[in-house]
């Protein structure tokens, strides 16, 4: 699979040379330089990772190389991008069209929105084949099928005729990769290709990219914020910060001995599985949340009279308790029902079973009757930007719950808001500002202040740090732990990120398809997982250490097909949990022997 780029057995000549690249974006305050003097080479078969936090300019680099910078706001103001003999910065749009996909292809972050919802997979694949004259029209469908087989898509024949909405996120990303590979491009730019996917799917997609790279000798430019992905994929790493290169080094050197302070702090902030310190025991404290046999089901309507034809068994027979000062982590992949449990606790979805918050039964309570319960339980959501009202000052938003619950009046409200702001590490003079004036991490602090305004005993944190950069994430996690130590707060910590869970949790509950498959003390579940599903989840987590390869993931039959939707009257089979040791309970499957 050599492509003539190697000279006499020596070092391969770089395929892509970026030199002193500068990109500016027009803003209301004039031109802002978002990429400042970036230089790097990419050789055939090599993977270079562009790593950095949001706003570091890594996606801008990808778009600049592809000639897809949003016009007219962003433009290249200096430097050069050479692909072989071609200078890309001087290329016309027509010239660029012949390069895109044919020589440089790209895979994007959002497989959900990156495909055209109105076209079948086959048409979207054939389109790119025909555009670049890879094959004749009559051969295109056969070629498309071959591509789907290359990306290891299950049932490729059936997939050809399907539309994107009929595929899962992982399948869609495979289709995106098939499109990117259709013309056997020399360079593949992967812009956060697995960020929107579950961790097990991420592991599969990363494996796939590596395999295809080996088969085709493709040069890969991997853009990611995840140092675990960097460690797993990259040969060399370029750490970006504010559009400048902070450090460039072979991956092992960077992880072993980062030279710059920024790279050091970035690596230090990465949560690593198996490194979290022990947590003090919380046994003996009283139960703040006590859930028994909780089920949440959503009806699917259909037929001539709009009858219920099927049901989504989102949560099925889940029981758990959270003690004072304790953190219970709820983990599992998207659609497993973990967020639904959080919503049920706050009465945001209809549910069956029993939920007691601080001893008070919340079943059958109206919205108004839920109010006193909600003083004790509050929620912090994933996207701090979307969960704040952009037209209200943050101070107003922190005060609002106290006013609604009649906790304080007049100047006392403001005093309390100021106190809360200082509490979460913001200054009191920020109260009069609007959400857009804050960074993502600060906004999440505002959301935490808002949740704390009622002095709740429990906070449901639903993926509360998932959207934040690692350094910011570390700070917010620290804040949550501080609040817990000082006020004895309890958390229901919902997350897909095992390393974060390890830092936060006292106990861990693993969910799959609406039911608990394993639960127990943090160390029991994370360090001695007994259920194959838990083992799979843990094995999929990328290890932020290039010297330690990720262990192979155990296979579970029918993972892709499993669904929590059942016909009316025939729900899922209830899973029975078996107690292995003190508090460590596992669903009984063949692979688990008690």
């Amino acid at each position, binding site marked *: 699979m050599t492509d003539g780029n190697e000279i006499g057995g020596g070092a391969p000549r770089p395929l892509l040379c970026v030199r002193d690249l500068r990109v500016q974006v027009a803003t209301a305050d004039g031109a802002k330089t978002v990429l400042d003097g970036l230089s790097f080479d990419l050789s055939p078969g090599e993977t270079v990772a562009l790593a950095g936090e949001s706003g570091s300019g890594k996606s801008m680099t990808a778009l600049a190389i592809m000639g*897809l910078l949003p016009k007219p706001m962003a433009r290249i103001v200096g430097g050069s991008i050479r692909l072989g003999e071609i200078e890309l910065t001087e290329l016309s749009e027509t010239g660029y069209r012949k390069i895109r996909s044919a020589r440089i292809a790209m895979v994007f972050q959002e497989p959900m929105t990156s495909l055209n*919802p*109105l076209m079948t997979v086959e048409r979207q694949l054939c389109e790119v084949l025909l555009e670049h004259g890879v094959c004749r029209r009559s051969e295109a469908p056969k070629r498309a099928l071959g591509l789907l087989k290359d990306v290891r898509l299950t049932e490729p024949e059936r997939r050809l005729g399907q*539309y994107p909405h009929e595929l899962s996120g992982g399948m869609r990303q495979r289709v995106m990769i098939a499109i990117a590979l259709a013309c056997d491009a020399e360079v593949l730019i992967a812009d956060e290709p697995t960020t929107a996917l579950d961790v097990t799917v991420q592991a599969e997609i990363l494996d796939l990219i590596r395999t295809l790279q080996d088969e085709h000798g493709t040069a890969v430019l991997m853009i990611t914020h995840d140092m675990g992905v960097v460690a797993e994929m990259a040969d060399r790493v370029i750490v970006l910060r504010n559009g400048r290169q902070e450090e460039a080094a072979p991956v092992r050197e960077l992880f072993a001995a980062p030279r710059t302070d920024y790279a050091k702090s970035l690596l230090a902030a990465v949560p690593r599985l198996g490194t979290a310190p022990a947590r003090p025991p919380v046994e003996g404290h009283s139960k703040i949340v006590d859930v028994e046999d909780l089920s949440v089901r959503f009806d699917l309507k259909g037929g001539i009279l709009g009858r219920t034809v099927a049901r989504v068994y989102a949560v099925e027979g889940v029981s758990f308790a959270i003690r004072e000062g304790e953190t219970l982590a709820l983990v599992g992949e998207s659609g497993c029902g973990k967020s639904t449990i959080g919503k049920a606790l706050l009465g945001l979805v209809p549910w069956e079973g029993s939920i007691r918050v601080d001893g008070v039964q919340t079943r059958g309570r109206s919205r108004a009757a839920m109010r006193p319960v909600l003083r004790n339980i509050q929620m912090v959501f994933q996207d701090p930007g979307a969960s704040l009202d952009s037209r209200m000052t943050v101070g107003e938003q922190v005060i609002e719950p106290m006013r609604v619950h009649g906790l304080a009046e007049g100047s006392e409200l403001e005093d309390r808001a100021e106190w809360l702001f200082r509490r979460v590490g913001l200054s009191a003079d920020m109260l009069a500002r609007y959400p857009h004036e804050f960074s993502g991490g600060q906004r999440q602090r505002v959301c935490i202040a808002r949740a704390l305004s009622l002095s709740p005993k429990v906070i449901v944190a639903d993926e509360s740090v998932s959207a934040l950069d690692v350094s910011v994430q570390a700070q917010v996690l620290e804040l949550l732990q501080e609040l817990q130590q000082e006020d004895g707060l309890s958390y229901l910590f919902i997350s897909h990120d095992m390393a974060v869970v390890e830092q936060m949790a006292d106990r861990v509950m693993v969910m799959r398809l609406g039911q608990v498959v394993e639960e127990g003390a943090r160390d029991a579940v994370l360090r001695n997982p007994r259920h194959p599903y838990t083992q799979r989840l843990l094995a999929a987590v990328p290890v932020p250490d290039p010297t330690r390869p990720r262990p192979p993931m155990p296979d579970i039959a029918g993972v892709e097909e499993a669904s929590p939707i059942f016909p009316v009257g025939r729900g899922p089979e209830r899973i029975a949990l078996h107690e292995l040791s003190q508090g460590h309970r596992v669903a009984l499957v063949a692979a688990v022997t008690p």
Partner: protein
Amino acid sequence: MTSYILRRLLESALILLGITFITFVLLYLVPADPARQIAGRSATAETVANIREQLGLNDPIFVQYWRYLSGLFQGDMGRSYLQRAEVATLIAARLPASLLLMVSAIVTELVIGLTIGVVAALRRNRPADHSLMIFSFVAISAPQFVIGILLLYVFAVQLGWFPIGGYGTFAHLVLPSITLGLLGAGWYSRMMRSSMIDVLNQDLVRTARAKGLSKLRIITRHVMPNAILPIIAMIGIDIGLFMSGIVVVESVFGWPGIGQLAWQAIQRIDIPVIMGVTMVSATAIVMGNLLADLVVPLIDPRIKTK
């Protein structure tokens, strides 16, 4: 699919039943007396009373309504008070002219509206966009009778390109269609523009560009089909707008359709004809909506008819 259409037809029938009731009650509440209209100004009170008795106007409203409804179920829309003819016959004679005008107006507004919308979106915030949006604003805000008379004056009277009024040839159709379609063209151009801009900013366009496709192909194959989806549902509702427009435009251009029939009937409180025309236009609106809802799943695979 069949069960979906059946359910929708059942719903449509219920809606139409509701419309007959509301229209009937409203007409009953009108303070003018149809019998007096029929008898003429010079008729004696006795004659008027006789006519009232003959037409059954003295019966309680629910008796009258029941009589009308049972007639309707047997396909009898009643007899005109003033013209010696069955309402069904009157409508049947004029319906083809109105349908022709309506279809050609829909084609006009879609062609003009969608084209303007696409061009404006591709040239957004540039002079072409601004002038097209001013045009669409004028098209939306100008009353149809003003536009109709203006077009007549310029293109029929001054330039003599088209006949001044009447019905029969393609030339007769042009000015009424444009007059009727211009309002919708204004709406559709604005909706299409914002819908296009919305889709142009979506990730799928970036993917299409990364594939190396030509701009033309990206616009026609990826952007336009996605942009037109929200508009299709609007076309169904739009037929309602047409019905009010048709009354005005048919009068201005002397077009022999049901709009004129309605106009004459309203002036003279010819209740059976008013009821008949209302039923026809209501049916058109309901069917238009049903049609739109059936077309959308053909284009958008995410929407399934259940």
